[in-house]
């Protein structure tokens, strides 16, 4: 058996899903190169988090997308159990307000039939309230799709990465691939800002930058990704409008649907907007005034009432990697041999990710003539960090007796204990990443609450500084340190300048 050295470019949901699937076999020796300091900080962090039923994918225009989306929906139901990922499966309602909108919504019934999506049906006004009490009573009806779910997308990336790494995958962060090396029509490795890595197979899962990486390998030269921004607003957990189901507006030719959901963490979230940006604006995650007012307006069409803007605790934006004609570029090349594109994975990429991973493997087997050998010792399961927030007081009491650190609350708003934070730090270190306050936040949700970290950020930073034995000021928040130095730094430098 030939052992292929595989480098996956990008640790987003696509890259880590492929890594997990490849880690099941003896045939591959997998590394993931990620330019950010942690996994999942690209598109996969900021999106609507929906596992789509796939009745919205046109099977004629986008057959691959439709198929993989449908498959992905089913695989996620397994993966969230195997990997202990926070998920809910409440079903969704596509709300319509007019006969034109109804016509548009009904179009998806035929897609549902062709895509084999179960249970899709129209619900009319007289019954809507019993499906969803928070729905706008003016809505004429809604298209119901019971298999819609949602997950915590950043936790999903973290969970899959942890599992893949346990099964032998190597993660290299802070490493930007700048060149694909090719000899005799075969890939031989990549150059990065931290040296080069040899490889027999290079899988491009670089999200917003997948066109750049593809061009490095000299393939798909006319393939360009256009960023399209989507903004969101998140409300305080305490607001009384908390839809049980996933709600969204009916898409029109000019506007994409806007969602109103209660996230897996328990907050009302409204979004996204859709705004095309210049081709090079790939870091432009700015929130805008227009975005805010648009979301409040659209939210009002879906919900019987939108909570006041004063209850917004967070706003953020994500960037969609819009490929030409909306077409995913999934291809395994023989020239150069060993190069694989998984590029332009726009929505429903989160839903399809596990299916895409399986599909990529299948293509590779065929094109590269690989005979798979299963690992005997592959670990299927991964446990999430213990969350005391979800425990009864009795269970918490038992846990604290085993480990008193569960009894020390660091994040008030979301009831996160010191033990959870310490465990998150350990797990970050274990996958080869440098702990940051943001990394801890995405693993524990400390700082996600209504105070947005003003009570707990310094305490988390203190725990990191003690764990790493570094001064508090050099603990990294997201990308830069907490402080410039000790509090007397500037005065001392003045002293030096004088003498």
């Amino acid at each position: 058996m030939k052992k292929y050295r595989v480098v996956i470019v990008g640790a987003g949901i696509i890259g880590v899903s492929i890594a997990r699937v490849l880690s099941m076999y003896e045939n591959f020796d997998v590394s993931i190169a990620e330019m950010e300091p942690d996994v999942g900080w690209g598109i996969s962090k900021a999106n609507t988090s929906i596992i789509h039923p796939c009745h919205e994918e046109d099977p004629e225009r986008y057959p691959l997308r439709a198929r993989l989306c449908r498959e992905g929906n089913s695989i996620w139901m397994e993966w969230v159990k195997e990997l202990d990922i926070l998920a809910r499966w409440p079903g969704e309602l596509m709300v319509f307000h007019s006969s034109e909108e109804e016509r548009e919504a009904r179009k998806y019934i035929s897609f549902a039939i062709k895509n084999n999506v179960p249970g899709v049906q129209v619900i009319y006004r007289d019954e809507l309230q019993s499906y969803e009490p928070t729905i706008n009573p003016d809505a004429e009806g809604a298209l119901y799709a019971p298999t819609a779910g949602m997950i915590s997308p950043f936790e999903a990336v973290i969970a899959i990465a942890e599992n893949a790494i346990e099964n032998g995958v190597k993660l290299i962060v802070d490493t930007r691939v700048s060149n694909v090396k090719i000899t005799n029509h075969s890939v031989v490795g990549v150059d990065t800002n931290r040296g080069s890595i040899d490889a027999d197979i290079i899988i491009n899962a670089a999200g917003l930058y997948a066109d750049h990486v593809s061009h490095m390998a000299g393939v798909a030269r006319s393939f360009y990704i256009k960023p399209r921004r989507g903004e969101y607003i998140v409300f305080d957990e305490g607001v009384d409008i908390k839809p049980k189901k996933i709600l969204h507006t009916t898409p029109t030719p000019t506007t994409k649907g806007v969602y109103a959901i209660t996230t897996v963490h328990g907050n009302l979230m409204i979004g996204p907007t859709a705004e095309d940006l210049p081709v090079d604006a790939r870091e432009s995650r700015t929130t805008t005034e227009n975005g805010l007012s648009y979301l409040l307006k659209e939210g009002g069409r879906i919900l019987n009432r939108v909570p006041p803007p004063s209850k917004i605790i967070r706003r953020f934006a994500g960037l969609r990697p819009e490929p030409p004609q909306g077409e995913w570029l999934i291809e395994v090349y023989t020239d150069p041999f060993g190069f694989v594109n998984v590029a332009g994975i726009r929505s429903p990429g989160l839903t399809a990710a596990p299916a895409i991973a399986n599909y990529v493997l299948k293509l590779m087997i065929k094109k590269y003539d690989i005979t798979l050998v299963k690992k005997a010792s592959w670990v299927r399961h991964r446990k999430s960090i213990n969350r005391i927030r979800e425990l009864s007081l009795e269970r918490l009491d038992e846990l604290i007796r085993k480990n008193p650190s569960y009894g020390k609350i660091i994040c008030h708003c979301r009831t996160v204990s010191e033990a959870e934070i310490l465990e998150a730090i350990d797990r970050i270190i274990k996958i080869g990443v440098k702990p940051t306050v943001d990394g801890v936040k995405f693993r524990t949700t400390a700082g996600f609450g209504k105070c947005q970290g003003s009570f707990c950020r310094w305490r988390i930073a203190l725990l990191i500084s003690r764990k790493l034995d570094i001064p508090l000021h050099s603990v990294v928040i997201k990308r830069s340190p907490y402080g410039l130095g000790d509090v007397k730094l500037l005065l001392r430098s003045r002293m030096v300048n004088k003498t």
Partner: protein
Amino acid sequence: MNSSEIISGAKEELICIICPIGCSLEVYRDSDDIHVKGALCPKGIEYAKQEFLDPRRVVMTVVRVKNGDLPVVSVKTSVPVLKKCINDIMMITASIEVVAPVEIGQVIARDICGANIVATREVKKINNCD
């Protein structure tokens, strides 16, 4: 930038801070005396003269601590010092480091610009063996 929106540190115009009315005071000196305009009461005149001739402040900051349960201790000057001394005091607090334990009220540095620098917090000593 519109400078009228900026409250700048002009010398002759003061806001009285003695009571919440906050009279706008004008202070000027002629050949032999100091004059104050705009005060509604004598306390304001007093304040203006003091601020004009001899403005003083209590300075408070922190000083680094070795082997403490906190890395800094808060301190203040024991009495108000001349405004122009603020910088000197700050420079001195930047150059010293005290060793824990520190008691509240402990003198950290003596007789600087006519004041002592005293601790306003307690910092305990930690065992450095863990």
